[in-house]
């Protein structure tokens, strides 16, 4: 316990230094901004900012990028409530009851509920990370290569299971990601793989270039195809204070949302989006009068808003303790750590306690900053909605290009980025989401190295993957996930969770 307090003290000591505080503020401000602006999401933003982090101190870089992620959850709900547009995919359900409240002249209450619920959830999630980080890391240190191999398999399959859309396509995209990660010189044998003799490819495909192209450029192409329409007819905010009645209805929903979000966030493939949908479904299910939902039920706003913020934060747990990113965005965080020369995993807590606890403490600090940023300053953010996409689109493209070029001043990198943009666009168009690809790309080398190492230790016997208890358990769980995916009945139910607003 004293240990825990000492760690927290260390973390806050790091998080409130002026430099880190500045980058935390920068991160959450950027996060709120892109959360409010439809048409650019946190993944694309983090990908775009990766090149900039080269020159930053490592702790500050991670604090800023993390801030973008959970900051976007706050911003996304603002757009959803005021103009009925999900600024972020995780705030799709917020539109339903949040906008209904706004139309009843209670936008201020809705915004306050969302922000306070998110803050509460963020606080609980931060405490949760502090409490479970140490024991989980201890478990992770006992992992051998075979166990890691099985953990990656389980993580990838579970991520596929929870993703929306066709699981077959998602598995294929993971495989494509692994395939792309193989490009370059094989670290074990020193042989070139799929380099076509191009010197630019000897070190493999640069993760940042891949991420900018696949997430940033392809998103712009996709938006331009669909046409991003926006009515700046924002609702008036009105009073911010929830009534006693509001509070009584919202608080239990906040508690449930926080619990659900914290749990789903830890699971691979979970995180913010899944959490908010699941929470909305839960609230409607247990409500005494479900017909209120869709007409401004405050529980339908408070639950999902808390859940998405809790999920956004607890999805850092597998990354920080096991070194396994739970979703595409966490894969980008792995990229950011690699850039700084840090290999994510259980060792980080021992070797870099300042970074580890500083990052965690910064999440709470960031949530506090967000509360201040979002409630009193809401008027400023609303004005952002007036920026037309025809200005945003060239600006984002500009950042893509200069970001890819500035990595190593290589023209080839910018061209690769353009290619990935086109590939990513066509894949999205045929229903293949890029997120599993990014996950596969990051986890591919881990998968291959641990498989080779595991087989080497067991002298070529595949039984090593089932005789080690941890590995065997994880593989058994993976098997169950596959069976569940193959069962069409469950598939249909899964669909319902994602379209909870269809009646």
């Amino acid at each position, binding site marked *: 316990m004293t240990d825990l307090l000492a760690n927290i003290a260390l973390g806050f000591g790091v998080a409130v230094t002026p430099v880190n505080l500045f980058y935390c503020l920068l991160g959450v401000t950027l996060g709120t901004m892109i959360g409010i602006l439809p048409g650019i999401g946190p993944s694309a933003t983090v990908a775009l900012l990766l090149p900039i982090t080269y020159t930053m101190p490592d702790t500050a870089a991670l604090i800023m990028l993390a801030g973008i992620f959970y900051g976007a959850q706050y911003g996304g709900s603002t757009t959803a409530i005021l103009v009925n547009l999900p600024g972020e995919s995780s705030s799709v359900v917020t539109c339903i009851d949040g906008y209904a409240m706004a139309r009843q002249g209670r936008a201020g209450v809705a915004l306050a509920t969302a922000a306070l619920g998110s803050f509460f959830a963020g606080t609980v999630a931060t405490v949760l990370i502090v409490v479970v980080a140490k024991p989980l890391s201890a478990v992770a240190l006992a992992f051998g290569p075979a166990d890691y191999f099985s953990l990656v398999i389980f993580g990838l399959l579970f991520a596929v299971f929870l993703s929306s859309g066709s699981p077959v396509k998602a598995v*294929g995209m993971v495989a494509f990601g692994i395939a792309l990660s193989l490009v370059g010189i094989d670290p074990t044998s020193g042989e070139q793989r799929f380099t076509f003799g191009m010197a630019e490819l000897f070190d493999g495909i640069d993760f940042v270039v891949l991420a900018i192209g696949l997430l940033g450029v392809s998103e712009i192409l996709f938006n331009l195809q669909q046409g991003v329409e926006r009515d700046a007819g924002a609702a008036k905010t009105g009073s911010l204070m929830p009534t006693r009645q509001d509070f009584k209805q919202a608080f239990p929903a906040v508690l449930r949302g926080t619990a659900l979000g914290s749990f789903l966030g830890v699971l691979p493939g979970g995180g913010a989006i899944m959490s908010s949908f699941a929470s909305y479904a839960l609230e409607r299910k247990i409500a005494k009068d479900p017909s209120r939902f869709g007409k401004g039920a405050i529980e339908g706003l408070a639950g999902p808003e808390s859940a998405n913020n809790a999920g956004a934060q607890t999805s850092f747990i597998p990354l920080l303790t096991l070194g396994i990113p739970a979703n595409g965005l966490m894969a980008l965080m792995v990229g950011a750590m690699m850039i700084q020369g840090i290999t994510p995993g259980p060792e980080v807590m021992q070797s870099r306690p300042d970074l580890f606890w500083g990052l965690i403490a910064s999440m709470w600090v960031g949530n506090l900053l967000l509360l201040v940023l979002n409630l009193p300053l809401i008027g400023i953010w609303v004005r952002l909605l007036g920026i037309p996409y025809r200005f945003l689109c060239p600006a984002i493209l500009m950042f893509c290009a200069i970001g890819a070029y500035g990595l190593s001043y290589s023209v080839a990198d910018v061209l690769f980025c353009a290619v990935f943009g086109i590939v990513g666009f066509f894949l999205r168009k045929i229903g293949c989401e890029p997120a599993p690809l990014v996950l596969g790309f990051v986890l591919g080398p881990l998968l291959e190295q641990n498989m080779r190492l595991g087989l080497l230790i067991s002298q070529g016997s595949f039984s090593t993957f089932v005789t080690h208890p941890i590995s065997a358990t994880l593989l058994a769980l993976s098997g169950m996930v596959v069976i569940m995916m193959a069962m069409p009945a469950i598939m249909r139910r899964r669909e319902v969770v994602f379209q909870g607003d269809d009646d």
Partner: protein
Amino acid sequence: MAEHKTGSKLTANILSGAFFLVVAAGLYYGARPLSMGTNFQPGPGYMPMVIAALMFALGIALILQDLLGKTRSEVWEAPKLRPFLAVAGIVGFALLIEPLGFVAAAFVLIVLACIAYGRIRPVEVLLLSAVLIIACILIFVVGLGQRIALLP
């Protein structure tokens, strides 16, 4: 989902399947010269072959799903060509940044991006270019100290 009129059109699943098959074939050919190694010591060709086999199976499954199944996935519609000018802008930036410097390359990118969005208003494009180019110079060159040549 079920809104297809003719039976011969390409669907999202068939195209995805075909894409996976192409990648699988590429992996197979690329990995052929690499050593598979043994189970005891898997070589550099081991993983590519496993992935190729997996993607081959998934590709076939996706194609069969639409050829044999009752409900088919969305029918492919050709995308509009104009938005691809945005990508042309990035390519233009890449090709011009070394010979002509950042300012010219960025201007070309912004103009192409504006055309990609839709109709352009010359004054607006000029103003936007000026703002964006100055902002980028301040952030990347002045702030982050990147060595990017501004002019030829």
